[in-house]
């Protein structure tokens, strides 16, 4: 069980690092979400993995440690709030800076895509594409 567990955490962290290394805010937020899941799993495992064991008080010496579970619960709540904030900020930055690059500078392909989008809009002004800012 430990092996599967650690592989899962490792793969998730790997994916999240890949996503975070991209310059777009959306993939970074996705990466952060994935990372926080992986971290929560890791935190959960810190008390040792045990199945079918009582939580702290029972006969016998084996028990599953309840403290990491409490820590994970707190971390999940905080992680949710932070992800929500990061998303809102990403949307705000998209509106303020005009693109979703982290450093606020659009790449050449983005500029080209925006131009094409603009031309399409100009040709059919009565059908603006929904969900796009500006």
């Amino acid at each position, binding site marked *: 069980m430990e092996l599967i567990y650690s592989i899962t955490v490792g793969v998730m962290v790997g994916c999240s690092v890949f996503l*975070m290394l991209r310059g777009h*805010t959306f993939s*970074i937020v996705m990466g*952060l979400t994935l*990372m*926080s899941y992986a*971290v*929560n799993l*890791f*935190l959960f*495992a*810190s*008390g040792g993995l045990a199945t079918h064991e009582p939580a702290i008080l029972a006969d016998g010496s084996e028990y599953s440690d309840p*403290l*990491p579970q409490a*820590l994970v619960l*707190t*971390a999940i709540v*905080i992680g949710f*709030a*932070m992800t929500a*904030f*990061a998303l809102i*900020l*990403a949307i*705000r*930055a998209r509106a*303020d*800076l005009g693109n979703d690059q*982290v*450093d*606020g500078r659009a790449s050449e392909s983005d500029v080209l895509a925006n131009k094409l989008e603009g031309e399409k809009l100009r040709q059919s002004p009565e059908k603006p594409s929904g969900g796009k800012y500006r």
Partner: protein
Amino acid sequence: MMHLPGLPVLLPFFAAVFVLLPWFNTRLPQQRIVTQLFLLLLVALCSFVFIDTLQNGPRAYAMGDWQAPFGIFLIADSLSAFMLLLTAILALAAHLYACAGEDETGRFFHPLFLFQLMGLNGAFLTADAFNLFVFFEILLIASYSLLIHGGGRERTRAAQHYVLFNLIGSAFFLIALAVLYRAFGTLNIPDMAARAAQLPEESIPLAKAGGLLLMVVFGIKAALLPMHFWLPRTYGSTSIPVAALFAVMTKVGIYSLWRIHTVVYGENAGEVAGLGMDILSWLAGATLVAGMIGALASKTLRWLIANLIIISVGTLLVSVSLQTEAGVAAGLYYTLHSTFVSGAFFLVAGIILMQRGQAEDRFVRSRPLLYPRLTGVLFAIAAMAVIGLPPFSGFIGKLFVMQAAYDAGQAHWVWPLILVSGLVALIALSRAGTTLFWRTQGTVVPEAKERVSRLHFMGASMLVAMSVVLVIAAGPLTEWSMRAAQDLHAGISISALNRVVEGEVVE
């Protein structure tokens, strides 16, 4: 008296909730007065805690009355009390400045300001590593919102970097806590310190990994060299009172290094003693150099101050890496000095940029200031304090750090770095001052009279005056910081902690 350590956390919390009540929503003047009153109350409370801990030793509060090491503890010892009082005074001045108009540019300034204080005070009081994480998150989420207060392109971009970077930092914090819990079997800091010496063989690598990960996390907060790039843009683009309050944020990282790396990984920690301090001393020196280069290259006054903060962080990290009581005491005095003076400098920069119209605080030829004398005096005192010229607090602070380095046998690399950083600050600030005050053309900006108010000057001069107070009270302050450093190094045992909770005075 039993509940005393909890009050500095609860007071800002209830104040924030009070200011959030619907009645206040549309009444900004009332919000200002109430928040200002609460902050005055907080200063009084923190002064009381300060005096109390100096006279009676540490006080502890057990949440839910769980005995140590099981419950979560708030401990107010002399080091915490120092930081609490520092934060409260800084917040009072920054808030006074904000009341002159900066709070109108966005909603919820006052509640966010108070929540930020709650997080800061909590981080200074808690004795539990996971609880430290929770308070870090509280102060961070408040700082995210305060940072973009007022809006604008620059601010949004800076906030994006700051938020994403700190979220990654939080993930590292959790990983570190998980590793440490596995290694120590507890997250209560005094308990961790007690167990560090008798760690079983297989836990030592884990304890080392966790400790170094925590150093990375605190390095992000404190702006240690490879993780310091967020700081100039963040501090240089946010609104002035927020930047002044943020002057204490880097010190949270330093404080946490003291709490974890000086106490848990202290000299009695056996195998893991002095963990990572050799790397830290190299990085601290490099941070100083990076701050110097940044200070010489800055194009606006706010970026310059931000880079001077990096220099002060480098100096503080040097004092942490010395691992001596004198180092901690010197660092504590230097923390007081650099926080007050950086805060004061941001407020003075705000006053200058309001009087210069379009040029703001860029180092270009521009119109003359409306109040050159008063602004100039404040600028000059703050600049002399930062550089470390006598008779202001920077002189004593740097002397104290250098003395500690000499006693620890590290003078050969610490002295040149600190002295050269003073010279660099002198060059950068005299260049800045000459341009801002003397290279002028045209007439004064007409709307400056309405923009600059008496409250701005009151806030700024309050913090500038603190630099003078630090000099006048230098004798007792250094003595108290020595005592705080001794208390920190001595630590507190679990049995003593339980007796303190009962209200006993522990010597």
